[in-house]
């Protein structure tokens, strides 16, 4: 019986591709075991951590997870709360009691708090087995977004945009003087003092999204920003 890896670390695999043979490796999410083989079931990047093989998806919709901070758009205002678009396969509900700390009188006008089309930073506090999402506005940094611009990126690239302990996003913030909020669902809010700053920020984030799976990303983004005439810390 052979025990070997069929692909290299950090290579791209497609569904149906044999990743490893034998029982020496453990399949993580995005793959399955068939007989003696471990086979990929998703398009992604291979990451080998000891005996465990993982796949980092390169595409796909956002999967709602409890505790994630996301940016959503108000789709509808109901009697009991707000219905929010989440950029995932499912909509979400923000109930009146989770939406505001104020005492809201019965029949009060809820659009005073969030109106249709508003973008909000919100946290997922529950996801049911049927993927019904409950949101809350109670927590640090959760608020309605005023001004700025919204861009969408692939949700699988969000960790790259944020970087280790927020290193990437804080580098961009310092270099461009923009306020940036990255939602786990791939919606990014950018607000700068002037439009030029915002445009450079958008370009930087799009560049990260495009090249995130190639190594040496931080360095390339740093040179990209300084080429644009921005001062980057750590040079």
């Amino acid at each position, binding site marked *: 019986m052979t025990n070997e890896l069929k692909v290299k670390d950090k290579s*791209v695999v497609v569904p149906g591709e044999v990743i490893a043979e034998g029982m020496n490796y453990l399949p993580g999410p995005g793959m399955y075991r068939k007989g003696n083989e471990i086979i990929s079931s*998703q398009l992604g990047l291979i990451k080998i951590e000891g005996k465990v093989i993982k796949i980092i998806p390169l*595409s*796909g919709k956002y999967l709602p997870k409890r505790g994630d901070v996301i940016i959503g758009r108000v789709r509808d205002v109901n009697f009991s709360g707000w219905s929010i678009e989440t950029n995932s*396969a499912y909509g979400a509900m923000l109930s009146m009691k989770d939406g505001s700390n104020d005492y809201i009188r019965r029949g009060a006008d809820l659009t005073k708090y969030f109106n249709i089309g508003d973008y909000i930073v919100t946290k997922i506090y529950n996801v049911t087995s049927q*993927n019904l999402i409950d949101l809350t506005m109670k927590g640090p940094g959760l608020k309605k977004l005023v001004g700025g611009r919204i861009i969408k990126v692939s949700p699988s690239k969000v960790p790259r945009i944020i970087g280790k302990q927020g290193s990437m996003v804080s580098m961009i913030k310092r270099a461009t003087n923009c306020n940036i909020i990255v939602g786990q669902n791939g919606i990014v809010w950018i607000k700068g003092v002037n439009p030029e700053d915002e445009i450079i920020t958008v370009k930087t984030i799009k560049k990260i999204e495009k090249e995130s799976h*190639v190594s040496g990303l931080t360095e390339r983004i740093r040179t990209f920003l300084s080429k644009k005439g921005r001062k980057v810390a750590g040079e």
Partner: protein
Amino acid sequence: MIMVYKKRIDGRKFDETRKIEAKVGVIKNADGSALFKIGKTTAYAAVYGPKDLYPRFMQNPEKGLLRCNYNMLPFSGSGDRVRPGPSRRSKEISYVTENALLPVVNLDNFPNAVVDVFIELPQTDAGSRCAGICAASMALADAGIVMKDLVGAVAVGIVDGQVVVDLNYDEESYDKGDVADIPVAIIPSTGEFTLLQMDGRIKKKDFLKALDAAKKIVPKIIEVQRKALKNKFEVKNDK
């Protein structure tokens, strides 16, 4: 007259497909997309979703739904205008495409949702449903859908007593002898057939021979699909 089909009309070998070209990510707005070209037959596939499914009675609380739509563009035929909109034929092909792909895709994580697959053909020269299935399976993978394998599809058949692979229109309409056209789709890792239709008449012996030919050729098509999917991400490596 004895067996006359000794050489194929376009000069290919009997077990050779037409030239295949595949590309992924051709439609930027879609969640996943692919182009699959085999000879003159060209298929585009775009995948949207998983997303909310309405009307509500169609929702399945246990798993997501796969919805395929096959469409030939009005100018795609060999001269006659193809009437746009659903027809008996396009509805049937949409249905068999769906069933060809369903055994590999896993939508258990998306209850009450739907994945829409749109297959459009700007140019056809026989084998369009197979090209559509190949494009759709690449587009689904590109959209990040969990699937246990890609699906490869090709038409095999018999032209005047000779088993051939990937018939073009001239062969399908060959009039000097019997023709059988068998579009098949295969899951390469298990060897299962997910599409098996037939047009024409064939002997059982020849039928089995044709299926064997399909089993041999599909892995080559899968290889092209895989390369195209990887290409989307590796081009950027060079920059």
